[in-house]
């Protein structure tokens, strides 16, 4: 079959990214031709500033070397500007007469710098700051000349000024607005930034209006004159007063343009269905984006449509900003200007050069502006994007995520101050230098890419904020974080909420149905999505949807915990941590009989037998004669208890009895993640109820119930939920809360994150304020658990494939 022809006009980051995405999913669909006006292959435009500042070289910022184009059979026309397109005959023509015909055309012409229309703008020594040629001109000029004037005190202007200063020039920044970076900073933060840059040697003329550029006899610029008549010397003038979408070609060939080439959510132009547009030249819902992350999202969507998969829509992005000037920490996101109906939380320490402003509307964080200490930028940004309710953490909000307690990276929370040898990710032992190197050498832009390549923050995720900071500092201002709602995995664009809704609303009962209805890209998913979908099915339709053991992680398939050497560990259930001589004897006999190397007491008041061979598991279970402890699953693990009033001289309630009742009611319960309970008999709280998913504390008049605590990666103290009088009430409230979590939680989301996402008020409304709903939730959980088998003894009923315990031989 003859391949279709795809022509791309423009050879920049957004366009080439689209090709990369397209080649991934449909490598053989098109014969591809690329026209680039610059004589270079695709390079990382964001890193021009570090190149100007002398921190990187041009070679280092090339993203796709010429060999990449050759490998993929792409015809590349460098240094050829496209000047015409015949849309009827579908032929593209370049300046030098080169022609290419197309079936699909992708216009990715990017943007042009805005050149102030003042006299003298065409003098020698007056340039924009946009590409490699401009950068080289600046580097050359800095060698031979002294005075530079940068017009525009925005992101790009300040980076240019900083670079020129580092190259030895005396630099004045001229800015017409009342403060620097007015679109990214409020006046207070901007004043701090200005002072810090002045301390480094930059000069500023704020509010100054350029009237003309004056030349010498040789036609080279020599001075800048302002409206008020003053003049300053200038051997080099850099125009950094903004960019405009480059729509010259698009307008010429009759495509509808309004603040950019107007495209739909699939990045198709509204004028011609054969023509797509992406990047800084495209206007999506009235916005032409200039940052890399939104453009990469567009690229992904565009590629699926070019690849004829026909899925995915681009819905717009929230963006954040970070200035790429070494040693200056600055971050802003969302609507940080405030105004009517908003509340501002401000911390200002001009002496210590720290300023933070958070803007809240209706208990939702809508914007943040940080200067000096940006450690929590990505954390705030996440909340802005997720529209998270912050009422419950409001008093801590200003003090950041670290204030909420993180473990595993030695209390470090400021990436910029860390040496390259410092460990960022405690789980995978990744040092800062390794991450920086990977970002630079492999051209990484997103958190996901960094995770894949370095494993940093890929395990527990507690260092995600640090890794994002390093990414922002290294990959630069163009970086902004992942899309608003993350897809379940790379197999789909649907997020967890959408999948759950579809399963419930359309009564889906099998993984195959879910994949078909939600247009999964892979035939049978991956190791990330299959376990999630399997859980959603069996939790939404208990006794109706069939559990699929092959879609479960090995621990839940073998009903034991795999260890690093491939053996397993076995933890029998001891109701509320109470055991007996008979049980202990049986355990001892099993240890002897099967030569189990290690016996250890767990944190959940049970006994762990470590190093059991897989083929021995069924016999070990049988000899133990105790129920499965489910220590291996996303299930109810234990109910930890203190001794309680039966023995303890301080005890006010019988915590052990309460714990046994809870554990017997809830065991075998699968959940989005593991679930741990504790019951303490008095406020001394010896069972540590304050860091459990559900923690119960006995008081003289009854029981206090706490929810959404966590003792893991991030220590989160459980929140007070309610106080009740009787055991029955404890059972009902606990069951209802856990059922709500089972129904609404996302796979691998602990209760603390679930409650953080939906808000404690939502949970209270469903469980506490509405008695009928509480009873209904508890009843649904009872129905789901009713008749569930013990997987250690009822293999058939529990869908345990017994063949796995018998190896084949040859």
């Amino acid at each position, binding site marked *: 079959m003859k391949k279709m022809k795809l022509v791309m006009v423009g050879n920049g980051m957004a366009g080439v990214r689209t090709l990369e995405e397209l080649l991934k999913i449909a490598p053989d669909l098109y014969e591809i031709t690329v026209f680039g006006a610059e004589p270079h292959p695709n390079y990382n435009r964001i890193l021009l500033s570090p190149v100007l500042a002398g921190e990187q070289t041009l070679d280092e910022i090339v993203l796709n070397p010429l060999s990449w184009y050759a490998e993929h059979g792409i015809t590349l026309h460098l240094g050829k500007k496209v000047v015409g397109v015949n849309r009827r005959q579908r032929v593209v023509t370049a300046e030098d007469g080169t022609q290419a015909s197309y079936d699909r055309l992708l216009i990715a012409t990017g943007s042009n710098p805005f050149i102030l229309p003042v006299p003298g703008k065409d003098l020698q020594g007056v340039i924009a700051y946009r590409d490699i040629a401009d950068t080289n001109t600046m580097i050359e000029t800095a060698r031979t000349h002294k005075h530079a004037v940068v017009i525009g005190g925005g992101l790009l202007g300040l980076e240019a000024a900083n670079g020129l200063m580092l190259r030895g020039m005396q630099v004045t920044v001229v800015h017409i607005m009342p403060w620097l970076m007015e679109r990214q900073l409020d006046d207070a933060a901007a004043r701090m930034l200005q002072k810090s840059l002045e301390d480094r040697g930059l000069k500023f003329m704020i509010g100054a209006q350029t009237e003309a550029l004056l030349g010498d006899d040789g036609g080279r610029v020599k001075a800048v004159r302002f409206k008020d008549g003053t003049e300053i010397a200038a051997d080099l003038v850099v125009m950094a007063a903004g960019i405009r979408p480059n729509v010259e070609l698009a307008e010429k060939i009759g495509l509808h343009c309004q603040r950019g080439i107007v495209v739909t959510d699939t990045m198709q132009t509204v004028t011609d269905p054969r023509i797509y547009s992406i990047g800084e030249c495209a206007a999506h819902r009235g916005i032409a984006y200039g940052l890399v992350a939104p453009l990469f999202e567009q690229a992904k969507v565009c590629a699926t449509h070019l690849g004829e998969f026909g899925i995915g829509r681009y819905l717009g992005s929230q963006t954040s900003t970070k200035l790429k000037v070494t040693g200056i920490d600055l971050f802003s996101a969302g609507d940080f200007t405030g105004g009517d109906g908003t509340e501002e939380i401000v911390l200002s320490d001009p002496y210590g050069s720290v300023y933070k402003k958070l803007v809240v509307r209706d208990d939702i964080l809508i914007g943040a502006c940080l200067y000096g200490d940006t450690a929590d930028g990505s954390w705030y940004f996440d909340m802005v994007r997720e529209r998270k309710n912050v009422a419950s953490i409001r008093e801590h909000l200003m003090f950041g995520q670290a204030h909420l307690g993180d473990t595993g990276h030695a209390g470090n929370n400021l990436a910029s101050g860390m040496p390259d040898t410092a460990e960022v990710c405690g789980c995978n032992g990744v040092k800062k230098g*390794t991450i920086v*190197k*990977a970002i630079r050498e492999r051209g990484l832009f997103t958190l996901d890419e960094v995770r*894949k*390549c*370095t*494993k940093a923050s890929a395990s527990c995720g507690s260092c995600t904020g640090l890794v994002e900071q390093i990414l922002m500092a290294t990959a630069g201002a163009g970086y902004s974080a992942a899309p608003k709602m993350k897809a379940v995995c790379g197999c789909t664009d649907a997020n967890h909420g959408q999948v759950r809704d579809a399963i419930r609303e359309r009564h889906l009962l099998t993984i195959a149905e879910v994949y078909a209805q939600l247009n999964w890209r*892979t*035939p*049978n*998913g*991956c*190791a990330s999505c*299959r*376990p999630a979908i399997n859980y959603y099915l069996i939790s939404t339709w208990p006794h109706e949807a069939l559990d699929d*053991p*092959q*879609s*479960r*992680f*090995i621990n839940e*398939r*073998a009903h034991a915990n*795999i260890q*690093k*050497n*491939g053996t397993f560990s076995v933890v029998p259930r001891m109701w509320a941590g109470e055991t007996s001589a008979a049980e202990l004897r049986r355990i001892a006999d099993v240890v002897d009989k099967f030569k189990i190397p290690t016996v250890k007491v767990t944190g959940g008041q049970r006994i762990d037998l470590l190093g059991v061979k897989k083929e021995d598991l069924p016999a070990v279970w049988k000899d133990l004669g105790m129920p499965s402890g489910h220590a291996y699953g996303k299930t109810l693990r234990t109910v930890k208890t203190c001794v309680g009033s039966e023995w303890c001289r301080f005890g006010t309630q019988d915590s052990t009895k309460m714990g046994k009742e809870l554990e017997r009611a809830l065991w075998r319960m699968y959940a989005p993640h593991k679930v741990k309970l504790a019951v303490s008999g008095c406020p001394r709280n010896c069972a540590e109820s304050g860091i459990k998913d559900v923690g119960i504390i006995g008081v003289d008049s009854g029981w206090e119930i706490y929810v959404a605590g966590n003792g893991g990666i991030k220590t989160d103290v459980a929140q007070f939920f309610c106080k009740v009088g009787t055991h029955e009430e404890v059972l009902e409230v606990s069951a209802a809360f856990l059922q709500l979590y089972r129904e609404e939680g996302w796979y691998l989301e602990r209760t603390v994150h679930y409650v953080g996402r939906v808000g404690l008020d939502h949970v209270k409304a469903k469980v506490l304020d509405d008695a009928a709903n509480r009873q209904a939730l508890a009843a649904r959980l009872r129905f789901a658990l009713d008749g569930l088998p013990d997987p250690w003894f009822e293999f058939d009923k529990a869908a345990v*494939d017994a*063949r*796995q315990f018998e*190896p*084949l*031989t*040859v």
Partner: protein
Amino acid sequence: MSQWKTLCRVADIPKLGARRVTRASGGDIAVFRTADDKVFALLDRCPHKGGPLSQGIVFGESVACPLHNWTIGFHDGCAAAPDVGCVQKFSVRLDGDTVSLDLDELNGVVPEPEPAKALA
């Protein structure tokens, strides 16, 4: 000329699952069955930290190692990028419903797996 040794029937391997095969020397082998009943065999040892691939989740024509989630492809026994490393692949013959392995390969000296290359 290969000599084929009968192992089992296709139905003895769970769909989208695996069975472990023990042998006298050279280490266990994992045999996998895909959704469309293709059968593949790899040494049961992930090139990363030696995890038993037979215990992983099978998807498409690959398996995710149960220890650290490396994805190993059935066609070449190699890890998906960015991870680097390969494990020995064994030939499989499907004769109707019967799964056979190559006797020479089973008895052959197993070359040491390539050491896993983590990023520096």
